[in-house]
């Protein structure tokens, strides 16, 4: 699974909010760059780009090199539209006229899917100059809408440049080298949403490859069955114990909860999405977070590298 993700030409990363989409996308990008691929990591129309915290510099519309072989950018609607209009109309003065006209801009703003198709087609055009383009998509609900837009646009616009562009984008999305990765967490609600998202992708984006699932913040099982049994027996006596003993048991219970949640989550994901699920180890104390975004990315990158080297 990891091999396919790393080998893709165009990789979309999505998942429920706060699961670590940006971190995973960045870690994959770093890995590819490490193997001498020229990689572009893209954020879509984000007013507060999440990549800023990872690379300590804000991504602009033009790709900016942040490491060897690795560049980042933030594709904003206004700039992508300008590119789009220039490509279609070819006369700068006329494009300026459209952009200055409030009614025209409102019209474009209100046109369903216009925003997404313009941005997606910009993403696709970037494939010409980069070995790999990785897109940090918005959270699952919205991501589906974005990827479905070429279909909707083709239906709505039966002729003209958008129709043609939508066909091109659709063709790229249908290619085997285009992948979608969904990041999940060992929490019931997040797993539910991941499985639902998988089903929606199968139904709404049948032309795309089956998505790959990544489990973030997994806790490896470490308590033996006997230890678990003993913990349970101690818990049964909890009511008559002192505050200190209770707090110790509480702590043990957190660890157990995290480990069992990982087991349950992994099992459900495997049942729904297939056996090959890559998981990242949880950092920090119990449920807590550790370090800043750049440390998290560095750690994930190290884990991916280790896995790749082991496979070889």
């Amino acid at each position, binding site marked *: 699974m990891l091999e396919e993700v790393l080998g893709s030409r165009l990789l979309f990363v999505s998942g*429920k*909010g*706060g699961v670590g989409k940006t971190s995973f996308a960045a870690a994959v990008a770093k890995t590819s760059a490490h193997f001498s691929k020229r990689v572009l990591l893209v954020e879509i129309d984000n*007013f507060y780009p999440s990549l800023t915290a990872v690379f300590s510099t804000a991504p602009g519309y033009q790709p900016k090199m942040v490491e060897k072989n690795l560049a980042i950018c933030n594709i904003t609607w206004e700039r992508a539209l300008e590119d789009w*209009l220039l490509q279609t*109309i070819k006369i700068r003065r*006329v494009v300026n*006229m*459209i952009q200055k*006209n409030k*009614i*025209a801009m*409102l*019209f474009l703003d*209100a*046109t*369903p*899917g*216009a925003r997404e198709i313009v941005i997606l087609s910009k993403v696709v055009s970037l494939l010409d100059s980069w070995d790999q383009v990785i897109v940090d998509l*918005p*959270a699952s*609900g919205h991501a589906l*809408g974005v990827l479905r837009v070429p279909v909707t646009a083709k*239906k*709505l*616009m*039966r*002729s*003209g*440049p*958008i129709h043609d562009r939508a066909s091109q984008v659709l063709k790229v999305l249908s290619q085997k080298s285009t992948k979608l990765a969904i990041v999940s967490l060992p*929490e*019931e*609600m997040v797993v*539910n949403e991941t499985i639902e998202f998988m089903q929606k992708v199968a139904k709404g984006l049948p032309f795309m490859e089956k998505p790959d699932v990544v489990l973030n913040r997994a806790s490896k099982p470490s*308590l*033996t069955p*006997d*230890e678990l049994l*003993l913990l349970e*027996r*101690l818990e049964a006596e909890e009511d008559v*114990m002192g*505050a*200190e*003993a209770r*707090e*110790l*048991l509480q*702590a*043990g*219970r*957190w*660890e157990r*909860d995290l480990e069992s949640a990982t087991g349950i989550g992994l099992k459900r994901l495997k049942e729904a999405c297939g056996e090959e699920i890559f998981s990242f180890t949880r950092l920090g*104390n*119990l*449920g*807590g*977070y550790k370090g800043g975004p750049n440390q998290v990315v560095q750690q994930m990158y190290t884990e991916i590298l280790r896995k790749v080297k082991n496979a070889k």
Partner: protein
Amino acid sequence: MQSNVQMKELIQNQKLLICVGAGGVGKTSLSATIGLQAALMGRKVLVLTIDPAKRLANSLGLKQFGNTETQIDLSQIGDVKGELWAMMLDGKKTFNDLIDKLSKDEQTKRSILNNNIYQSITETIVGNQEYMATEKLYDVVSSGRYDLIVLDTPPVKNALDFLDSPGRMARFVDKRVMKWFLTSKKGEKRIIRRLLAGSSAVLFKLLGYVFGQDFLEDIAIFFSNFRDLYEGFQERHSAVEALFRDKKTCFMIVCAPHKPALEVAEFFLKELKKRKMRNPGVIVNQRHFAHFKNLNAKAFLQERCDELSQDLSAHTASMLLARLGVSHKRLHRLALEEDALVLELSKYLDKQQRLWSIQRMHGEVHDLHGLVQVGNQLFVNQE
């Protein structure tokens, strides 16, 4: 809300309580908790929720009740004076109902619902359910059927989306765009002719070139049908905005004790203040507490461990004791980290605002008894 409020007062006096915050912090469970507590106090409550975790929905008996108000059976937790109702929002249905209500006649309605563009508009604009939440809210509040409504807001990437949602539709049918269509007299043909011959003709010819002429015509027809609904949208927009600022409405920020969720909470604190919307404070959910430092597991549990592990494999007791010691160290560190983060957040609070903390539950809250337990933390332990 002059002084530091109590949660009890709040649900006794308010009519609308809106829970906002990042995704995954437990907004749905907390909305249900607050609703249940209010019902226990004798009020008639509606919890309006969007796509809750399936098990919570099941425990509230909410599975197949899209967009209908359903009474929750509270008999299993004793004799309850009030009533608890719940409803899950169905964005698309709400939107269709709205078109139904605002359309002047059957023909306008059908023409809109059958329009090619309508479908994708419901997907792009309404698919984000925050707008729909405010629509439905307006309906149930104005119905006067409930003493208190608790709204669990949809998780939004951009936290402002929800606060600004009443304006969303109104912006979409922006005055300038609408006026442009409104000035032309009836008839789709005329509108298209105007598109291509009026003062902006060159512009629209260009747009036609970019988008395709067919599409331009489709959208012109859509707008011409839609303009009849314009006034209706404007009215509702103003009404929902007034509702957000009403004395009996308040926003409750819900967050979890980690950086991403706290950042969203800070953001909401600032934005609510800027918008002069009432906000009694923040509920920090899913907290870990540790009261002791450097606990020696052996000192407190060795005896019981030895006794209870006689039939288990050798070293089980010593291994578990070692594990508990390590786990507790981590719990203690985590509790300190969370304390520091929460302290940082509390700097953003005004004098009259307060902070409620709720301990993380083992497992996920998925039945009425679980909700009562959380409620005890929120209403009993902290008051």
